[in-house]
């Protein structure tokens, strides 16, 4: 059998390679999606969430449950906290200098874990153990 020419081999390799790349791209739907920055204005009175015990997202007002918590009650201080350890990288900070820091290094995640240890689900409502 006559061996194929180097040109033919190169052409065939490139052709197959292009086909493989096209196939991989077709199998990866995310490749055709575009990254975007979405800016969202906050909702009004969203902090009311924390005051509505009938709301499944709600906990006790943080001002009641975490005395001395300064400055504001927020869902971040409520019984929703136990969900966060399941996140792959729960909290990071952008400080005022523009650097990104690890939340744990700032003591924040530790504080959250400490809070989470004091909470449990009771009839859809969060409270202290």
């Amino acid at each position, binding site marked *: 059998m006559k061996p194929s020419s180097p040109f033919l081999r190169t052409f065939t390799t490139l052709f197959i390679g292009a086909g493989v790349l096209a196939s991989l791209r077709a199998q990866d739907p995310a490749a055709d999606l575009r990254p975007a920055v*979405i800016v969202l*204005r906050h909702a009004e009175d969203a902090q009311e969430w924390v005051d509505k015990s009938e709301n499944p997202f709600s906990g006790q007002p943080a001002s009641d449950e975490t005395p001395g918590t300064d*400055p504001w009650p927020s869902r971040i201080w409520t019984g929703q906290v136990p969900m966060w350890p399941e996140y792959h990288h729960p909290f990071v900070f952008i400080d005022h200098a523009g650097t990104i820091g690890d939340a744990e290094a700032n003591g924040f995640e530790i504080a959250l874990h400490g809070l989470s240890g004091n909470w449990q689900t009771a009839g859809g409502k969060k409270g202290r153990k």
Partner: protein
Amino acid sequence: MKGGKEGPLGEKQAASLGEHLEAFLEKGRFQRVVNVITMDPREPGSTPNPFDTLWPYLRKRADQHAAGGPTGCDLYLVQRKTDSEDRWPGLMSLIEQNKLLPADGRGSAIICWTGEGLRGEGGILDPLIRKYRGPDAAYSWSSDAIERCADLFVFYIDANGQGVAEKWKFDHHTGETTLMEKHPKD
């Protein structure tokens, strides 16, 4: 507090965003959100509203991840410059340094901010507009549109490599989104 007997308006808006935000991204063919950025609610004098607005969405993402779904998103809490009421230079520097989005292009970012923090000196929109539409670009988004809750602003690079800035109206009752402005126009 607004919203009447059906509950606070903010609660409904936050819940609706949590329910419909992913559909909006899919409809626009945007990458899945990997970075969620908002004000640190622990900041003295800050407001927890932006964080709490995002909470239903964050909770949904956490639930999806816990159920074996896609990886969750990172939450970035932005801290204020300690000697200033209205300046958040950390976020501004990330905008200028193109660090809001992942370097590999695989993911989108959401910034939830106060209405006052969107416009004017120290606001978020102007540096994003300049970033995507050029250093001389400026748009007079109507103040009414910005003050209206739950409006969305979207910045991206289109298929022609051109920076695009869009303003969308979000109906928190139905989850429907309507394109209000686009620069450049089609």
